[in-house]
């Protein structure tokens, strides 16, 4: 699975698009699924914590009428962590929710994905399955919604003169 498949089309052409793709997958995935797949990878990199995991809020904005001026809709919880591998790569983890281990794992994965030695393993063992699970869930939800689409019947009246 190419990283281009993992992300909104508008990001694909931009700088850092690959990193945006995996960070987006890590941030939006369920913390337990991330933990399970991370454990299965059995990677125990040597690292230093630059910013210990911390939970906070991001104010989510909407637009008036959907397309107008921005307004503050309400906050969401998020957790972040920053680490540096002993091999030098810095990993930044920002995830939705309050799971500190999730943020730390995201930071570790981000750093390993920048290292040519580990990128392939983390991509196939963590990012690709998480992304395809999300896509499958979305597709299923959309197919269920599509089954509730109304098919209108229109009665066609015969307007020919009566015989």
């Amino acid at each position, binding site marked *: 699975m190419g990283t281009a498949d993992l992300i909104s089309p508008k990001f694909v052409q931009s700088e850092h698009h690959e990193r945006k793709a995996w960070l987006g997958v890590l941030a939006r995935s369920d913390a337990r699924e991330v933990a399970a797949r991370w454990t299965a990878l059995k990677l125990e990199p040597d690292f230093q914590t630059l910013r210990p995991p911390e939970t906070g809020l991001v104010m989510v904005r909407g637009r008036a009428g959907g397309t107008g001026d921005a307004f*503050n809709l309400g906050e969401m919880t998020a957790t972040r962590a920053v680490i540096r591998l002993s091999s030098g790569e810095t990993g930044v983890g*920002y995830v939705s929710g309050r799971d500190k281990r999730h943020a730390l794992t995201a930071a570790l994965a981000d750093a390993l994905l920048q290292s040519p030695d580990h990128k392939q393993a983390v991509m196939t063992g963590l990012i690709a399955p998480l992304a395809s699970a999300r896509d499958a869930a979305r597709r299923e939800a959309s197919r269920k919604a599509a089954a509730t*689409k109304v098919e209108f019947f229109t009665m066609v009246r015969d307007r020919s003169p009566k015989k």
Partner: protein
Amino acid sequence: MAYVAVKGGEQAITNAHALLAEDRRGSRDVPEVGVDQIRAQLSLAVDRVMGEGSCYDRDLAALAIKQSRGDLPEAIFLLRAYRTTLPRFGFSDPIATEQMAVRRRVSAAFKDIPGGQVLGPTFDYTHRLLDFALAAEGGHLPDPAAMADAPLADDLPTIASVFLHEDLLEHETPALDAAEPYDLTREPMQFPATRDQRLQALARGDEGFLLSLAYSSQRGWGSTHPLCGEIRLGDVSVEFTPPELGFPIELADLTVTECTMLSEFEGSMEHPPQYARGYGLTFGHCERKAMSMAIVDRALKAAENAVDQVHPVQDEEFVLYHSDNVEASGFVQHLKLPHYVDFQASLQFVRKLRREWAEARSAKEAAE
């Protein structure tokens, strides 16, 4: 005004809290309800608490509902209190609702809206008969929902985009020089309120209060004659730029409900007749709230230029000062806390008035 500290009652309070905990748990013959069960099976209660608590976190909202024994305004208060303990990382980019992964989308105004009428998981068209099957022990799992062969189109066109080419609907575009959006969590309410301030207040506002205001406006107390242009429910991606990265990442998929209400605008010297819009947006699946919000937004928008604002829904100070149920509940419920000194002072005053009244009356009788 002076406060007098009164000691005592400590043991009573401790015991009251223990009694509350026991009552919350209820009969021990019944298994305890889990936060995960509340999150999964009382999901619309969770949605309301996240929306009015103004904090998207399903686990926290479910916990608050459990702790509050299902008292949703109390749960909203708990969530609001919790959020004050967390640092603010920053602001997201505005969510793009036209790119929503839609699970329900209907237009009551326009039958042939492109993409179709998608009913989704709705109470509409149910008969509102109690379903005793749900009360049966060892309930069976429902049949899996039907699945169409193909998913819905990626981006369902919005009602606004459908009529854009004819300019029939008021089209909202961001101002080039738009200021940073007003933030009620940092600044107090001020008047006249800007649209961004109003929308934030309404998004946090009490569903019941906004529902009644919307209803009053429909019935003629500030008539808006609304038509439901579109309701959509689904997931949107939240983009946020972490300072360490300097570029946006997709931080979360949030469920939101959006509603566009339409009402006729007769036109003016500058503007041809068209449909004006009211906007509602909430966290989670809160359709009644999103619709009410859109109607109230439209009524306040229409009132901005009106000469006289005679109805409650047209008065932004009345609406925005009283829409927050944490503030409203706090002010009403503080009355049950000890007011012994106030009452003592009031008693003395009323006794004095009665004495004077009696003296005046007997003086008058003596004179007659």
